[in-house]
């Protein structure tokens, strides 16, 4: 079974995981926080957990596509650019096996 390694986009959930849980954290009094701990509101976290589930079960497909279109529109790079700084539009990941199925 020969499959090329594709270069798919990061999925919505992968981006959420990173934007919410990673990145530099400022530990100083100047940072606003809720009860001193979470920078991300409890409500927001719960809402997004719900969204991950919805994305997973396809409920958010239309929304996901709309956001993806918006993101793509906001970027005007020529198609097929594969530099190290290439675009990572928000898209549902297309993996190598699916690429194979289509071919």
């Amino acid at each position, binding site marked *: *079974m*020969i*499959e*090329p*390694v*594709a*270069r*798919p*986009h*990061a*999925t*919505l*959930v*992968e*981006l*959420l*995981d*990173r*934007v*919410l*849980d*990673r*990145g*530099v*954290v*400022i530990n*100083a*009094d*100047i*940072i*606003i*926080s*809720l009860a001193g701990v979470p*920078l*991300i*509101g409890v*409500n*927001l976290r*719960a*809402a*997004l957990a*719900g*969204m991950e589930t*919805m994305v*997973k079960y396809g409920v*958010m497909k239309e*929304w996901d596509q709309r*956001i993806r279109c918006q*993101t793509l529109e*906001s970027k005007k790079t020529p198609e097929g650019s594969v530099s*190290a*700084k*290439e675009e*990572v539009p*928000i898209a549902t*990941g297309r*993996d*190598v*096996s699916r690429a194979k199925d289509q071919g």
Partner: protein
Amino acid sequence: MKQGSETQRESAARTSSGSEQAGCYVYCVARAGEQGSLGAIGIEGHEAYTVPHKGLCAVIHDCPARPYESTDPEVAGVWVLAHHRVVEAAWKRWGNVLPLTFNTIIAATEKSAEENLVAWLETEYDSLNGRFDTLAGKSEYVVQVSWDAAVITGTVAKASPEIRKLEEEIGSKPRGLAYMYRQKLGKLLKKEIEAKAEKEFKALYDTISRCVDNIHVEKTKEDQEGRQMLMNLSCLVSTERYPDMEAELAKLGNTEGYFVRLAGPLPPYSFC
């Protein structure tokens, strides 16, 4: 550089509390001394602009000093993606970036929010520069390896004399006994597959870590039907080493029963 139109969130904030403490939402820090705007691409269409300090700059937007909160996943999702969009725009423009975690908002105290931000950049100056040095020319990639459950089960069954023997014996057993044998076979298969997964994981991890600069093991996610995710990694890879990693993953992708997914490049969210 205040956004002209007032957003719903801000107007609501203002009505409820009268005059509100000012703040700035920080998206990322870039190693560039530039003062300027990335355009109205921020959360809720805010203008994202830079605050420079000694060769570094923070990308921010002005906002009230209160966190972004919503129970509406669509609203929250759009915020998070806007955060990513700004980080990515800065990354493309300057080639390096340290993303801040979502909802990092610096408040005004006796000083303005911007002055507090500059004071933070000054305090963390060496530490931030150190991180920029470490991350120079490197990007984050999602690397996921999955198994085709059927192929792996077959391989494991073939490789185990114990399982083969059980399979042969089942055919000659009466129905009741065959059922018990099947149960036993199932358990044995599960054990063998788990042992193989552990072994494979270690070998794959070693191979991949040899061609990347840094690596984080993430929780495996549920894969599509018939597949089981064996490993989910965040890898930090330099432009020079990228071809090595890609070649290694291609090799693995060519192995029967394995599926490899490589996504990126992304700004180094997991490594800063």
